[in-house]
């Protein structure tokens, strides 16, 4: 939805700046008078929420880094120093930890919204791919950050996750030593994780800029999944969606504040308040909740032919994430929105249930019922993308899609509604 600029500099200085660096014009055309489909629902507010989350994470992270010591001997103590001595240090740390949790919650909703309304389809494939890249960067950053407090969970999460690279054939051990900077997770590992954690935050911010750029070329998708046909289908981003996003953000921040102030450790693991001990593994290792579905896939896969379960699990987990890149081409249906895809809609909700089931299975010991649930859900996860999505476009008869966003409301699509003012 590249549109003609409507920016009018209001002062001499604004005109002067506009002819040298049209940054105000860019901001105006992107976030003020940006034509946005007028039927966006609240599921579309998570992009803005995620942006604010990222800002909170970066600002609180920079503040934390002023007091944190990335050294195996001092890291744990420096986190306690932050909790006890630093002014508002407890707030900064709880804000950082809980915001990252809520960041994942928001990103999962954001992704499922894209899946449900077909936001990844032509012409928004690059937008989707950038989003998957952001998701992978988030996973990496969250993992690296979780290691920094250097508690028991930090240490053993680092050990378990880095050991996944040990399945690389022939050079696995060398890769591990290179990642660790030693013969196991130790001081050098912590040091480089800190450096990379800091780096990734700004890489994410950079890709977010590309993500928004790629969004602003075709413009937003919408719940009907049909293209904008003209000005009658859009409203300016400001004030309509700044207000809507602002309200959703307010609700989101209230939930975040409840976590920070009333249950700051509810999403964490108590074992991480025990200093890292390379000689003792905690009885039950679980990742943070947002990694549980992938953790379940990792452990669900048995030996497959000549591939041992360990290797197969790693491959399956990576495939589960990297499959998302191919989504725009795995989905063979031309209809974007699930509103008009009766079959897809059902498979979509089964997919959501499978993801939640995987999350539950990931939190349990991989045996009995949990293992069975994990295996069935893993099968469905892959079948959904690799079998159901390609087939549905062929066998499904979509409901009739409206001609335009305005038409169901306004009849002809351009006439003004009458008699309503609210």
């Amino acid at each position, binding site marked *: 939805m590249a549109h003609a600029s409507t920016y009018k500099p209001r002062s001499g200085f604004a005109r002067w700046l506009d002819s040298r660096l049209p940054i105000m014009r860019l901001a105006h055309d992107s976030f003020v008078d940006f034509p946005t489909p007028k039927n966006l629902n609240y599921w579309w507010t998570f992009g803005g929420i995620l942006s604010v989350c990222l800002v909170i994470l970066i600002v609180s992270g920079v503040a934390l880094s*002023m007091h944190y010591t990335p050294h195996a001997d001092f890291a744990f103590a420096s986190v306690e120093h932050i909790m006890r*001595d630093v*002014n*508002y*240090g407890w707030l900064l740390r709880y804000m950082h930890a809980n915001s990252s949790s809520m960041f994942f919650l928001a990103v999962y909703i954001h992704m499922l919204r894209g899946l449900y309304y077909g936001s990844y389809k032509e012409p928004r494939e690059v937008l989707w791919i950038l989003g998957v890249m952001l998701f992978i960067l988030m996973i990496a950053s969250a993992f690296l950050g979780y290691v920094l407090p250097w508690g028991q969970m930090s240490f053993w999460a680092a050990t378990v996750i880095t050991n996944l690279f040990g399945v690389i054939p022939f050079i696995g051990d060398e890769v591990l030593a290179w990642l660790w900077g030693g013969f196991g997770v130790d001081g050098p590992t912590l040091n480089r994780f800190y450096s990379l954690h800091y780096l990734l935050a700004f890489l994410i911010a950079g890709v977010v800029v590309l993500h928004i750029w790629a969004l602003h070329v075709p413009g937003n998708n919408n719940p009907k999944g049909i293209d904008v046909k003209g000005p009658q289908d859009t409203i300016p981003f400001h004030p309509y969606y700044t207000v809507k996003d602002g309200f959703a953000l307010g609700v989101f921040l209230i939930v975040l504040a409840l976590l920070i102030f009333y249950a700051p450790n509810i999403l964490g693991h108590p074992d991480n308040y025990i200093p890292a001990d390379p000689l003792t593994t905690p009885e039950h290792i679980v990742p943070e909740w947002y990694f549980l579905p992938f953790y379940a896939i990792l452990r669900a896969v048995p030996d497959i032919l000549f591939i041992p379960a360990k290797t197969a699990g790693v491959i399956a987990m990576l495939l589960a994430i990297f499959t998302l890149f191919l989504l725009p081409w795995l989905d063979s249906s031309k209809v974007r929105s699930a509103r008009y895809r009766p079959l897809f809609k059902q498979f979509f909700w089964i997919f959501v249930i499978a993801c939640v089931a995987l999350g539950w299975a990931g939190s349990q010991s991989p045996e009995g019922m949990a293992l069975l649930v994990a295996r069935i859900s893993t099968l469905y996860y892959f079948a959904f993308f690799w079998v159901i999505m390609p087939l549905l476009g062929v066998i499904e008869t979509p409901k009739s899609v409206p001609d335009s966003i305005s038409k169901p409301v306004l009849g002809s699509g351009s006439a*003004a509604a*009458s008699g309503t*003012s609210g």
Partner: protein
Amino acid sequence: MAEAHVEEDQSPDTDRRDFLYIATTAVAGIGAAISLWPFIDQMNPTANVQALATTEVDLSPIETGQTIKVVWQGKPVYVRHRTQEQIKAAQSAPVDDLPDPETDADRVQQDQWLIVVGICTHLGCIPVSDPDNLRGEFGGWFCPCHGSHYDDSGRIRKGPAPDNLAVPPYQFIDDNKILIG
């Protein structure tokens, strides 16, 4: 939509809408401003730093004529047990002619104890007080960086430094003990 625009221009709703707009923006703005405070305050001295904000000094082992250096808030502080001659010299200096006029009485609580921050007021070097030679022309301290001379009251007498050596806040806990800070 078209009608809504017309209404906005004419009806008293405009006032209510303006009020809501300003009120919402104000609440959000004030909230954002207040939530900035923790990010600013986190850079202030932490509790463990503040716990070390004061330094207790036992004066009893310091002999007459001797100067010791103690650390207070990360800075060197000189504690000098002055001799009678030094006290006399400090009290008889021509105050009005000094670059930074101050009487000795204003700089000490007890005549025999001079307590000053050992940081040259010129550019932050640490003035020395070597009993044999390097104590400057006025018997107090000499700054090796740019040659400032301080007297037995820590006052600047000669050289580029603009002010006297600072006297830190301190109090006598008892006759032989002071608490700096």
